[in-house]
């Protein structure tokens, strides 16, 4: 499969502190790639840089063979990279449907004429169509996560960056979101998925990248990562001989 995104030697300093330190990896088209690591490993920072919310200190990102390092986030969206936020950020004065319409109107370079219909189709995909006319602020946490996804999907991304779409959800809500991610992937979208919840990652992803203290610790298929001693050490701690 072709490489869609390539991150090379990415480094980000926050006033002397390295949040990311020389991270490199490739994302192949059509996969769901899990990005895991303990708190503060640099996962969200990495997302923000790929999606254009922050500029890296150094390093290079290529997407579809094009250098997109330091691109503005709305340009990243137009290029086909869209992200969700770990803490959902709905447009608070708008209804559920208007939230999605923002993504439809501005997320692509060519916006279509049948907005209302498309908005409803996307809301149906994430199972929010019954709440289309509700003010976004009235939604539950789980529904807000769906709305965040719906708004991003409205931009028709080729690469979707999902930041902890399952945190704070019940087991059944989580399973339904994971099912949704698999469906989005089957419709042709590549997904990078940041998650704290290891079972969620291991059951959904084709490939896993492990970050720790801003560095890439390991990379490989999920089963292999589960048994990797370095990964276990980062998550649980080192085994000591008594």
């Amino acid at each position: 499969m072709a490489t869609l995104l390539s991150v090379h030697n990415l480094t980000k300093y926050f006033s002397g502190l390295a949040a990311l330190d020389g991270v490199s990896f490739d994302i192949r088209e059509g996969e769901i790639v899990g990005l895991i690591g303990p708190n503060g490993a640099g996962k969200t920072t990495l997302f923000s840089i790929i999606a254009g919310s922050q500029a890296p200190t150094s390093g290079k990102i290529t997407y579809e063979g094009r250098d997109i390092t330091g691109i503005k986030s709305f340009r990243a969206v137009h290029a086909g990279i869209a992200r969700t936020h770990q803490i959902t950020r709905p447009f608070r004065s708008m209804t559920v449907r208007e939230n999605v319409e923002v993504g439809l109107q501005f997320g692509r370079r060519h916006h279509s004429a049948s907005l209302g219909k498309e908005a409803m189709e996307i809301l149906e995909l994430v199972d929010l169509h019954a709440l289309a006319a509700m003010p976004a602020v009235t939604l539950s946490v789980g529904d807000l996560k769906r709305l965040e996804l719906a708004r991003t999907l409205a931009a028709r991304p080729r690469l979707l960056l999902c930041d902890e779409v399952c945190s704070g959800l019940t087991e059944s809500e989580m399973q339904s979101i994971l099912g949704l991610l698999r469906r989005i992937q089957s419709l042709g979208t590549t997904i990078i998925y940041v998650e704290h919840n290891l079972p969620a990652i291991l059951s959904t992803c084709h490939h896993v990248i492990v970050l720790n203290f801003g560095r890439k610790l390991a990379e490989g298929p999920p089963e292999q990562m589960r048994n990797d001693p370095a990964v276990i050490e980062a998550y649980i701690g080192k085994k000591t001989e008594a």
Partner: protein
Amino acid sequence: MNAPARPSGAGETGGTVLRILRVAAPLALIAALAVVPLVDFGANSAKVLFLTFLWTTTGVAWNILGGFTGQPSFGFAVFYGLGAYTTALGINGGLSPYLTFPLAAVVAALASLAIGLPTFRLRGPYFAIATIGVSEAVRVIMTNLQFTGGASGYRIVESIPFRQADHYYSGLALVVVAVAVSMLVRRSRFGLALRAIRDDQEAASDSGVNPFTAKLAAHAVAAALTGAAGGVYARYAAFISPDGVFAFQRSVAILLMPIIGGVGTIWGPVVGGGIYGVVEEELTARFPEFHLLLYGALVILIILFEPGGVMGLLARARRLFSRRKDASWQPS
């Protein structure tokens, strides 16, 4: 998943009546205001109404940036003043007054770009503070600019004799245009971008909105309307000075109106402008120094108890009314 909370169907006919009223009421108001000069009910009342049109125009304009887009500016006197001086120079240069008004709008819009390019890199309170600085700087420059008379002001000499009705209809036409523009912006794709920016600028950018250009455009539209109002005022006043049209107090007055009426709504600035325009005249006459203090107190009260202004109060009353009605409709 929860069902929609509000029971529907209770007010079908009420909804239709409301919709007709929503179109008919503004048209009736325009018609009534249009016949006022024909009835001749006193030069002073006509003057108060005319000034109210101008005030309202600036309030409606400010609201496009401060309300719809959530970027409060304390520097709108700059656009008013530049519009006033553009018209003044234009008329004295031999142009038709009606040609100078659009020119005033263009000059103000260009100035808004010059101000917006650096200041829109700032956010929230920093943008507001920067607009104060820019506005004071422009006032000082105008005070020292020799060819417009500097601090002693600039006189406008028109070859056509003064007719109150000309000014009155210019003001009325301008305020109608301002409200129409505000409505169009609100309902357009552009308006959706502005709302997204106001709600969450980063999320807007993550959804593909370019916040910088959208804010620049909102600023330019608002500045153009404000500049035209300054132009219409200058022609009426026939004498302008930097301490008048560029005064910081004017910037404050411009943002007072939407706050009184209801920030971010279509009719809030109109209601606020109506109240301000009429009350201002009385207050300044009675308490020449004291009246600003009264406005200050009023704004504090509004922000504390009803940030939605008059429109917020109306919405609250409507909710109260419909809740009672709904309760009586419930079958239990």
